[in-house]
């Protein structure tokens, strides 16, 4: 060892002990080179040339660029610092199982045996039950035998009220075929009757409103009709759709012609009456316009609205030399403009609730988040009223979000300017008048529409409708 060190001109280190540090940072260990007697640079020789000839230890300059970064020396892994924790193939029982079957899985040896964590996901819907006498007393029906009812309740339990699956697995050999609506009708009927006569309500069909039981009522007739319409809509062939479109176009043409004719007759009558009465006053008959039959698009156009507004917010005009350019913040926003119907002819009302493609992913997410905070279903049942209000609500939400963003950016600007002012005028403080300050904690927050003139806001429109 010593010979090698001698050959390499390396001084023997004082300690030969191998430490963790010496392994990891071995290269950093001070290698003491015997400093060659300093050769003085001859007078007149360029420093660069001299450096090529003589460096500290008379090594030749390296032929290849060497990597001197510490990239390879630094280790992230902490070697040998901690003992590896053991894993064992251990038996476990799952409380979600009724049979106490023992399975094996990998777990940390140190982990104490606690309840199988996945058992918490074992959720079941609660399905009402009835006794034989209860059935005979309350649930008898001429259409349904008890065996069939039992079968239905059994399937409801097994398939967690997925009625389409229940319908699929219906025992057609033993009982007659029934539609999904028939099955639902019977089930909700039973729930309704039992919740009246029994004390414990079932969470999914009974809600308590002001201490009063409200039972979910299933309107089978309406559902049947809805399903039939849906089926017909889906089963249209392309030819039928084309035909419908063609007919609609024809209808428009006919209407236009009809209006034209009426206008002409009226003109004619006017002429006749004028001729009759000599130079009498012209009748105002012609002012009465005949109204065309409202087509789907005409109806829905009254719902479509647009509100594009611009907010020009002048910032404090800076009289001092502008260190920080204060630009006029222009915030541009609008609510959401829901387009009119997609496609011609018949369409589903739920289509109207689709956010238009122009609304970005982030905004959609933000709106959904707000809805969730308000405890509102993200996809409610699209009845006429719900559809309208839901769209308006989301439009308002989008607007509110935009305004909130604008407000925060203004607020930020304001504070920045205050700091700037105070920095330039030491000792002075700028008191921002509370009228332009964000009064988030304040009790009397003015309604949005009073602060900013929201022209044609959905809210305003809402009142007039």
């Amino acid at each position, binding site marked *: 060892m010593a010979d090698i060190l001698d050959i390499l001109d390396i001084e023997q280190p004082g300690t030969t002990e191998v430490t963790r540090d010496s392994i990891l940072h071995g290269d950093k260990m001070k290698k003491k080179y015997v400093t060659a007697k300093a050769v003085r640079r001859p007078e007149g020789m360029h420093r660069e040339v001299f450096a090529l000839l003589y460096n500290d230890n008379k090594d030749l300059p390296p032929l290849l660029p060497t990597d001197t970064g510490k990239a390879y020396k630094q280790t992230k892994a902490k070697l040998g610092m901690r003992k590896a924790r053991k894993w064992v193939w251990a038996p476990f029982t799952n409380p979600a199982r009724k049979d106490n079957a023992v399975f094996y899985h990998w777990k940390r040896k140190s982990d104490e045996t606690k309840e199988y964590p996945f058992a918490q996901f*074992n959720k079941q819907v609660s399905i009402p039950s009835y006794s034989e006498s209860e059935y005979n007393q309350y649930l008898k029906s001429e259409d349904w035998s008890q065996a069939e009812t039992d079968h239905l309740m059994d399937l409801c339990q097994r398939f967690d009220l*997925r009625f*389409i699956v229940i319908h699929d697995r219906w025992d057609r050999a033993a009982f007659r075929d029934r539609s999904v609506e028939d099955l639902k009708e019977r089930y909700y009927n039973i729930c309704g009757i039992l919740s009246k006569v029994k004390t414990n309500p079932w969470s999914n069909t009974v809600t308590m409103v002001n201490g009063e039981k409200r039972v979910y009522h299933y309107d089978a007739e309406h559902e049947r009709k809805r*399903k039939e319409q849906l089926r017909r809509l889906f089963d249209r062939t392309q030819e039928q759709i084309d035909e419908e479109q063609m007919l609609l176009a024809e209808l428009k043409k006919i209407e236009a012609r009809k209006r034209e004719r009426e206008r002409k007759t009226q003109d004619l009558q006017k002429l006749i009456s004028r001729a009759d009465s000599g130079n009498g006053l012209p009748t105002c008959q012609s002012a009465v316009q005949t109204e065309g039959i409202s087509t789907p698009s005409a109806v829905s156009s009254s719902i479509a609205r647009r509100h594009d507004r611009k907010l020009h917010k002048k910032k404090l005009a800076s009289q001092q030399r502008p260190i920080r350019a204060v630009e006029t913040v222009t915030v541009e926003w609008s609510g959401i403009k829901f387009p009119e119907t997609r496609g011609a002819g018949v369409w589903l009302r739920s289509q109207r609730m689709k956010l238009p493609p122009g609304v970005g992913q982030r905004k959609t997410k933000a709106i959904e988040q707000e809805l969730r905070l308000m405890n509102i279903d993200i996809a409610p049942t699209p009845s006429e009223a719900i559809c309208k209000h839901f769209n308006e609500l989301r439009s308002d939400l989008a607007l509110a979000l935009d305004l909130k963003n604008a407000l925060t950016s203004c607020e930020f600007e304001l504070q920045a300017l205050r700091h700037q002012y105070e920095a330039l005028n030491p000792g002075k403080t700028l008191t921002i008048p509370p009228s332009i300050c964000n009064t988030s904690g304040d009790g009397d927050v003015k309604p949005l529409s009073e602060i900013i003139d929201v022209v044609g806001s959905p809210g305003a429109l809402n009142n007039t409708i």
Partner: protein
Amino acid sequence: MSGPNGMLYGGDEIGALVFDPGHHSLRVGYAQEDTPKADIPAVIGVGPSTHIPDAEEKVPDGNITQSGNELRHYIDVTEIHVPRPGMEIQTYMKDGQVDNWDLFEKMLDYCYAKVIRSPSEHHPALFTEAVWTTRPAREKLAELLFEKYQAPAFFLVKNAVLAAFANGKSTALVVDAGASQTSAVPVIDGYAIVSAAVRSPLGGDHLAAQAKNMLNNMHIQMLPLYSIQSKEVIRERERARYTLKTLPAGLTQSWQQYMLKKQYEDFYHCVAQVSESSYDERTAASVPGVHYEFPGGYHQDFGPERFKLTECLFEQNLGAPHLVCSAAAACDADARPALWGAVVACGGLANLAGWLERVGRELAARAPSSHRLKTHAAPSPPERRFAAWLGGSILASIGSFQQMWISSQEYDEGGKGQLERKCP
């Protein structure tokens, strides 16, 4: 399973095995892995045990199981593809389900002994099944697993459901193009809608038969690969020059046919392509041909024929697009938008070049305009072919699934009658 911050992750592996039997092959492997451990042809060579030519074959080997009545069973490619006098090729599958249970037992023996190499009583077993598997077949399988193999637990899932899971869907319209058939099965919330499932016999085997027909008509001879001793390099479309091997006498018809079918399969894997829209001579001719060399050495370019060959898979009332449409139409109207929005393609034949695009196009033309159509398929060919197995692998390694198994205790108490209830 559960992380340091008390978070609960979805997986908990309990050493379960996943078996996916099909007409073409049996896929078997451990749950939680991303590919099966083995993909074994679904045929077994059955031959007389008297002929054991090589010394090393005498070593007791799991591949070759000896049964009492002097018959040997040859399993997996390395055993089957050897020309042996009197060895018949038999399959245990019929109509999408296991039919010959004695043979299937041989196959399971082989899986445990040679693939898994671990006793069957240590591993819960999850099996996939076709939607129309009959009740006796399901119960027989449960019986076999519990009574013969002493499995600690057993479960059966419809392969369409698993294929949907493998594609990250619980509601999907699964179109599976396998070897023996093509099927379309709606899956809603993880349950297959059995009454709406449809199938047709147009699968890979049909295409292989068509390929054979086509080559016959073109007067191209498909020589068995195993019969060729050597061949000469020749120019395109020139007559093949080759020498034949001396083969053992008494090779069975079924074996020869099986070997030839493999070659026709290889031919269409390499050559066949599905045209974008209905076959048209001129557009097909404008696509560059594909070169194929036959075992005897004969080789040529295949042009429009490659497209013409696959048209048989898109017959008006039997093709995959038609199946999808009729399966969707048989479903409740409320479920249809979700199904059209998640059409999942899987199965080996879905790897055929252009197949997915063609199905997508035809569906777009046929789907009701009020629905948003979206087709999904795994990007890589093996993932497509193993979709059902993968879904099983995922399902069996989910923590909350572990309560679903039928345990051997439950089987002992309730018997096989509970299968219908527990594995819907």
